[in-house]
């Protein structure tokens, strides 16, 4: 494993390519890195080149892994519906009987959905609108859009909320705490343990956030199939739009 390059927030090129661990990537993200690709191909990697092209666009298009042909979209309006949706998703994607794979997918779906419900929406004073220990029915216009699809190469999952509150700083500090401060990974907060996004990032191959501040957040993930997955091949992308 190579030494991770130091991220320079003043550099024009926001894309960092190399072969890193997710722990090393977490440090870069905590330092403000927004586009990180760990690959054996360096800047010649197809996905990294795609990101490079997207950096100059006002409205970045989806990465190729987000374009699964049989993708489904389901609206979720309450916390009580989430387990039913997760089960349905694993059945729809044909992985329900594949225990190992479906456990991973269920974990990713549950953490993203839970984050969407309990962290995306705020009161006027900035406090969380919905308490983690309560059963929640989202108001009109707040429903989450959950998308999922499977191909031979892997699974695509995305969860979109209508709050737009997930910041790079929140992600960076959560990742840093969980990878570097392993005696204090867990937060004693009534809204959650602070582990959810870390668990998702650790499980997936590609992780992308599209933030429209105050409007919506789309968190998208790709879980590579077992023959393709490699712990050192992954990407992290954070696009902030309308900034």
């Amino acid at each position: 494993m190579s030494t991770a390059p130091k991220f320079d927030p003043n550099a024009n090129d926001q894309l960092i390519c190399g072969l890193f661990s997710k722990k090393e990537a977490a440090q870069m993200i905590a330092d403000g890195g927004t586009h990180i690709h760990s690959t054996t191909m360096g800047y010649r990697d197809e996905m990294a080149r795609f990101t490079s092209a997207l950096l100059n666009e006002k409205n970045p298009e989806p990465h190729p892994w987000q374009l699964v042909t049989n993708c489904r979209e389901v609206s979720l309006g309450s916390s009580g519906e989430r387990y039913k949706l997760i089960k349905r998703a694993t059945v729809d994607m044909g992985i329900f009987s594949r225990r190992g794979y479906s456990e991973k997918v269920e974990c990713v779906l549950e953490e993203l959905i839970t984050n969407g419900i309990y962290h995306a929406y705020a009161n006027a004073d900035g406090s969380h609108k919905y308490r983690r220990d309560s059963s929640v029915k989202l108001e009109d216009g707040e429903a989450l859009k959950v998308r999922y699809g499977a191909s031979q190469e892997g699974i695509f999952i995305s969860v979109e909320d209508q709050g737009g509150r997930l910041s790079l700083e929140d992600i960076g500090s959560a990742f840093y705490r969980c990878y570097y401060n392993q005696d204090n990974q867990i937060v004693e907060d009534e809204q959650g343990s602070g582990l959810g996004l870390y668990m998702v990032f650790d499980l997936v191959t590609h992780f992308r956030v599209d933030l429209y501040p105050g409007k919506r957040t789309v968190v998208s993930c790709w879980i590579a199939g077992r023959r393709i997955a490699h712990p050192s091949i992954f990407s992290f992308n954070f696009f902030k739009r309308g900034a």
Partner: protein
Amino acid sequence: MLLDNKFNLKKKFEDGREVIYISGNLDEDARFDEVRKDQPLVFDMRGIVGVNSCGVRNWVNFMRDHKNQPITFRHCSPAIVHQMNMVPSFKGHAQVFSIYVPYACSHCDAEDRVFLDLVKGAREAPTKVPCKNCKVGKMEIDGDEQQYFAFAA
């Protein structure tokens, strides 16, 4: 993570000692109130199928509250092993006696789990095992072996 996999805790006496079987999803609803604080604890974890982030916190708090008792984990399912690797305090001061290692067939994609007794010195999982499903292919460890055994380092 599913509705029909609610967390469950059962105690059984085996060979003169209490063994605590936990199963289902380890989540925010998991409760450990009935676990005693005055004896060594043995947890059988083969039945845990999923662990969410709040379940991790519940468990880590439980481990902290019982830090003065010897604790043993046995028959740890892959869901438990993944958590021990991601969150070191999940294992805490416990000794891990045995785990299940996930395998997948390179020929038919079938999955299986191989039991590994760490006490008897079996520190390494077999590289390949015959597939019971297709009887043609060989099963290999599903995932990165080094990562899977990181908790034991």
